[in-house]
C-alpha cells in the first residue's frame, strides 16, 4: 500500500543482463597469451641478465596496472563524494580488488627476478617497499569495506581512505628512497629516452597493452558482480 514515490528516490539497483560471452574478457585473454608468446619465443634474452630479464614483460606492466588501479579507485571515490552515484563506488571497489591481485603479482614476480639478479628473494629496495605498502593500503581498504554494512557509509569512508592513500604514496616513496636504494635505474621512464632495443620495446608495450586490457576486463566483471550484489540486497530489503 505504498504511495507512488515522489522526490528523488534512488531506484532499486537493476541487476546486470549476463547473457552471451564477455567479449572484452575473451579479447584480453587472447592478447595476453599473444604477449606471453612473443615475450618467451620471439624476443631475444638480455645481454647481461639473460633470461631472468624476461620477467620484466610481466613485472612492469603489472606494476603499471597496480598503480593505475589505485589511482582510478581513489579518483572514482573522490567523484563519489560529490556526485553520490553508486556506480562510482562500485568502480572504486572493483578497481581496488583488481589492484590487490595485480599488486600481489608484483610482489610475487619481483622476488623471482631478484633472486638470480640480486641474490636474495626480498630486498628492502625503495620501489619494492613502496609496492608492499601499496599492497597493505589496498588490503586495509578492502578490510574496511568488509567491516561496514551500510552502503552509503562504506562508500564515504572508502573514498576518504582511498584519497589519503593516494596522498601517502609520494611520502612513502620519498622516505624509503632516501632510506635505501639499490634498484636498477629505470629503463623506461629514463630522462635520456628508452634504453631498450626496439624488438624488446615492441614486446614491452604490447605486454603493457595486454595487461591494461586485462585490468579493464577484470574490473568490468567485478563491477557486474557488485551491481548484482546491490540489486539482490535492494530486492531483499524491498520484500521486508
Amino acid at each position, binding site marked *: 500500500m505504498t504511495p507512488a514515490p515522489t522526490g528523488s528516490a534512488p531506484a532499486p539497483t537493476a541487476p546486470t543482463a549476463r547473457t552471451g560471452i564477455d567479449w572484452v574478457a575473451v579479447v584480453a585473454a587472447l592478447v595476453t597469451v599473444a604477449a606471453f608468446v612473443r615475450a618467451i619465443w620471439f624476443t631475444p634474452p638480455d645481454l647481461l641478465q639473460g633470461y631472468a630479464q624476461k620477467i620484466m614483460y610481466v613485472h612492469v606492466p603489472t606494476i603499471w596496472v597496480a598503480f593505475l588501479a589505485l589511482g582510478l579507485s581513489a579518483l572514482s571515490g573522490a567523484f563519489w563524494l560529490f556526485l553520490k552515484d553508486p556506480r562510482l563506488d562500485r568502480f572504486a571497489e572493483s578497481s581496488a580488488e583488481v589492484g590487490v591481485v595485480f599488486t600481489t603479482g608484483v610482489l610475487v614476480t619481483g622476488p623471482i627476478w631478484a633472486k638470480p639478479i640480486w641474490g636474495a628473494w626480498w630486498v628492502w629496495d625503495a620501489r619494492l617497499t613502496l609496492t608492499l605498502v601499496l599492497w597493505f593500503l589496498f588490503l586495509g581498504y578492502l*578490510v*574496511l569495506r568488509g*567491516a*561496514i554494512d551500510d552502503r552509503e*557509509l562504506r562508500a564515504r569512508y572508502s573514498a576518504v581512505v582511498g584519497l*589519503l592513500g593516494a596522498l601517502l604514496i609520494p*611520502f612513502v616513496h620519498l*622516505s*624509503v628512497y*632516501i632510506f635505501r636504494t639499490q634498484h636498477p635505474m629505470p629503463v623506461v621512464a629514463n630522462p635520456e629516452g628508452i634504453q631498450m632495443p626496439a624488438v624488446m620495446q615492441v614486446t614491452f608495450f604490447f605486454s603493457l597493452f595486454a595487461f591494461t586490457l586485462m585490468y579493464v576486463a577484470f574490473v568490468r566483471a567485478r563491477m557486474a558482480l557488485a551491481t548484482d550484489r546491490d540489486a539482490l540486497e535492494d530486492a531483499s530489503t524491498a520484500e521486508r
Partner: protein
Amino acid sequence: MTDPTRGILVSAWVIARKDLAIEFRTRSAFLSAIVFTLLSIVVFFFAWDPTAVGPLDLAPGVLWVTFTFSGMLGLHRAFAVEARDGAMDALLLAPVPRESIFLGKLLANLAFVLGVQTVALPAVSLFYNLPLGAAALPIAGVLVLASIGLVSVGTLFAGMTANTRMTELLLPVLALPFFIPVVIPAAQSTADLLAGRPLADVFVWLRILLAFDLVFLFACTVAFPFTLED
C-alpha cells in the same frame, strides 16, 4: 565569532579541554598506555642478544615501535567517549564547524601521545643507558613532529573505525601504512642524533616529517566532515 578561523580554534580548544577532563577523571587509558610502553621497552630488551647488538643501536627502534603502538591505544579512546550514549550527536548539533570537532579530538590525542612520550623517552634512556645529553632536545623535537603526523591520520581513522564492526583491529590495519613515512624519518634521525651527529645531518628527515605533518594535518581536517553521516 567574527573571524571563522578563530571560531574553529576556540571551539576545538573547548572540545579538547573536555576530552582531557574526562581522561584526567578516569585516567584508565593514559595509565594503561604508560604501563604498556614500559612493558614493551622491557620486553624488547630481552628480544635481542645484548652482546651482539648494542643498546645504542637498539634504542631508536624500541622507542619508535612503542611510540607507534602506544599512540594507537590513545586513539581508540577519543571517539569511544563520543560513541557511548550518543554524545557525538550533541557535538554535531552544536553550532560549531565540523573541523573544530576534528581539531579538538586531535589536540586531546596529541596531548595524550606526548604525555606518554614524556615517560617513554626517559625510560628508554634509563633502561638502555643512553647518553642523551645534548641530543635530548632535538629528539624531543622529532617526537613532537612525529606525533603531529601520527595523530592527524590516527584521529581521522579512529573516528571512522569507531562506527565499524571491528574497531580495535581495523584501526591499526588502516593506519599503520600511513605511519611508515613517519617512523622511518623519526627512527633514522633519532639514531643519527644518538650517534652524536650534528643537527644539520638530520635536516633531510626533519623536512619529510614537517611536510607530512602539514599535508596530512590539512588533508585530514578537510576530509573529516566528509566522514560524517549526512
